[in-house]
């Protein structure tokens, strides 16, 4: 039974401490957006502090068929936390306690609102390591990372968020609080329901606690920068490094347009005619790091590298990272807006994909900067544009569709680490079959028969 949205705030104030509920138009405007340009007003905002509060809100919402959109820090890049159909913005950012760091089992138990970077620093102080490192790690939340299955540069060696989630406490739309998995590294006790919720974009349940696996902190690290005249040489070097038995901790690529954009912005002295820069890091025990760095040096030289630098200290490391870290501000300085995409292709398809994107840029007359994670095939083409120019935005839309088509044709997919949310849902048909979408919808219906949790996301009904 639907209720008048006017009374929604009042209803929530009966369920939660009143100062945790907001429904003024200003507050609704503040919870309408995420890190995309998409926005839709929620009818009310509920800041929650416990699983019990989440359960109370979900039971109420199920009874009254009100949409509930879970939200961490609202920094997602696919519209996942945008309340597309209104309803309640359920804010979990205030649940930010690190409940336990178990150094003997190398596990941590966290609330969903813990900031990823804060968590990383905390475990590092205990000699441990939490590898997933999305670019927004200083302000995104672990709960959001789990719901979107976030990745980052460490993906090539260490995998992504899903590889670290062993246990979850989840509140499902009925209001039941489920405890799934735990501190067991091996666990085949029925379906792997933990992973069902990882990457489910807030459509199946609300994560209120997570048990995360940790690694020992690698004692040594080495950073290298390789500049290639030709993109294909860079790509064969990447293949050679992996085939040579070395798995770098990060293996980032910048295309010629990125190099020029950064050069316009900072004048670092990067060669504008070079087609690719690889930024490579190895980590581990000191002797292994030395040996791996030598292999990388040798392979890059065999593949015709134009220049190869290895950082001798942290100051030089920062200098080598400077170009990669400056891409974002450099493209912000270049044009008023940027639309960042997140395709993922087999590693061997990277040069072909880069060339396809360059062709699309020419065809639609749009500057597109390409950078990303060469080690795992996840590329971020960024279209530099102006959101206020509606004519140009139409071209941007067509270019994005062309990029997705090219990615799927090369054996890739729509998103590596941002999720589908709202921004990519119209392209779902390119990457997955109708039967697969139907299965997803069946699973959602089983858990959320009233369709209250983040409705209208991932696929189109």
């Amino acid at each position, binding site marked *: 039974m639907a209720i008048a949205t006017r009374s929604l705030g009042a209803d929530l104030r009966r369920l939660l401490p009143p100062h945790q509920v907001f429904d003024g138009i200003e507050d609704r*405007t503040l919870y*309408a*957006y995420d890190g995309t340009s998409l926005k839709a007003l929620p009818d009310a905002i509920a*800041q929650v502090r416990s699983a019990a509060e989440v359960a109370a809100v979900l039971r109420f919402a199920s009874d009254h068929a009100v949409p509930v959109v879970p939200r961490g820090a609202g*920094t997602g890049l696919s519209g996942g936390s945008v309340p597309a159909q209104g309803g309640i913005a359920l804010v979990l950012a205030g649940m930010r306690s690190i409940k336990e760091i178990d150094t003997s089992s190398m596990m941590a138990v966290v609330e969903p609102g813990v900031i990823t970077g804060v968590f990383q620093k905390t475990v590092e102080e205990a000699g441990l390591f939490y590898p997933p490192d999305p670019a927004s790690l200083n302000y995104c939340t672990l709960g959001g990372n789990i719901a979107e299955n976030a990745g980052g540069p460490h993906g090539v060696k260490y995998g992504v968020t899903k590889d670290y989630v062993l246990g979850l406490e989840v509140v499902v739309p009925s209001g039941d609080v489920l405890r799934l998995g735990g501190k067991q590294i091996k666990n085949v006790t029925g379906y792997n329901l933990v992973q069902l919720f990882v990457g489910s974009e807030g459509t199946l349940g609300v994560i209120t606690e997570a048990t995360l696996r940790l690694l020992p902190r690698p004692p040594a690290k080495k950073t290298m920068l390789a500049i290639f005249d030709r993109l294909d040489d860079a790509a064969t070097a990447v293949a050679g490094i992996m085939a040579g038995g070395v798995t770098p901790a990060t293996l980032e690529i910048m295309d010629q347009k990125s190099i020029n954009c950064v050069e316009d912005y900072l004048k670092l002295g990067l060669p504008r005619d070079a087609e690719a820069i690889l930024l490579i890091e190895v980590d581990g025990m000191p002797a292994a790091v030395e040996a791996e760095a030598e292999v990388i040096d040798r392979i890059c030289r065999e593949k015709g590298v134009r220049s190869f630098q290895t950082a001798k200290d942290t100051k030089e490391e920062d200098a080598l990272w400077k170009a990669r870290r400056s891409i974002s501000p450099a493209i912000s300085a270049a044009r008023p807006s940027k639309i960042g995409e997140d395709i993922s292709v087999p590693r061997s398809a990277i040069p072909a994909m880069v060339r396809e994107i360059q062709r699309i840029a020419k065809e639609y007359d749009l500057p597109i900067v390409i950078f990303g994670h060469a080690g795992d095939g996840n590329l971020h083409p960024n279209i530099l544009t102006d959101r206020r120019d509606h004519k140009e935005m139409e071209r941007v839309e067509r270019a994005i569709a062309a990029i997705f088509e090219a990615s799927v044709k090369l054996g890739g997919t729509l998103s590596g680490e941002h999720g589908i949310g709202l921004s990519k849902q119209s392209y779902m048909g390119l990457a997955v079959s109708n039967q697969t979408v139907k299965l997803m919808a069946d699973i959602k219906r089983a858990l959320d028969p009233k369709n209250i949790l983040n409705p209208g996301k991932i696929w189109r009904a």
Partner: protein
Amino acid sequence: MEFRELAALFKCNKCGSCTAVCPLYQNTVHEGMAARGKVALLEAVADGRLKAGESVRAKLEDCLLCGACATNCPSFVPTTDLFLEARAGLAKDLGLPVPIRMLLAALRSPALMSLGTPPLALLQRAGIPRIMLEQLGGLLPDAVRAGLRSMPPAPLRSFRSQAEHLPTNGDGRRGTVGYFAGCFMNWGYAEAAMATRTMLTGMGFRVEAPAVVCCGVPHRAYGDIEAARDLARKNIVALEAYEHVVTDCASCGAALKEYRHLLKDDPDYRERAEKFSRCAADISEFLVKHEFPKPEGHIPLRVTYHDPCHLVRGQGIKSQPREILKAIPGVEYVEMQGADVCCGAAGSFCVTHPALSESVGRDKADHVIATKADVVVSGCPSCLTQLRAMLAAKGSKIKVMHPMELLAASCKAGGGESK
């Protein structure tokens, strides 16, 4: 409300970087506190989705204007400038509330402040505000309680009336300094202002402190731009004859350096403001630039430093105060965590938003206490007052000082020239 900086609004892509550095967001986890939230509200106003009324103004005033968001924005959105512009637009459209108008009017009247300070100093010496806080703390309204604890230690005599009676203003072999005696330093921290004067005369500068008016920071913050311009013009007239204009208040210094932007559309003052702002310097910047003599008196203290927003971000002054402190023999300098994070005072914010101000101030006090320092130093009277109150509330005995007090003490102990 119209925006001059509208294009800048649309550069914000809501990435969320600002949330990581906003002290208010960190304490509340509410979008409205962070810069991107305020930008979203202004976008909605610009698009006509939201009415520019009192509720929007209240949201915009939930801000320390500390500038951390602007400094850390990867897209270079000039957030603080945007918010000041929006506050000015709202002040024009809606007017300002009566208490704020009274405060701003009082700040425009040096005579009123001269009259008010001695009675305040006497009350403080009798311990009245302290007793009120101790006895009535829980019963007082938040704003009154915040007002009481936010009062500077008023001297019986202002800096200017003390300086007038000194036998000499210095020999002036290195030139003459026009000292900008800001309200807070003149009437609240006269001893620190005297220390500034001692350092300048000791270095061979003649120091004159002509009558000036408020620097205009509060007026600008509340959006009364015309009043800020009027004050700027008066201060330029008072001090433009000096080759050096020096202040020991972070906020005043930032304001004096901004006059060139504030008066850029005033044909009579544009060039004068340009020259004036170029001559203006913070005392720490001035001392380092003019190679202050190495202090010789031993001061065996562990010292930490808090960066005032209006120095570190407002004027880009970060190394100079540290260089001065490290030059003092015996001082063991220790850096605190988050030294450049706002202390929460933010001018009148500590009175208008006591709960938020105290939550930020408590974090700062914790970081000061963690250094195990004997003294925390800061070149801003507003910060000094907040640090004192917040440390006192935690029962800490750590002393709070202006850098010039510590430096002058060392010079005096070392037998260096003074007066």
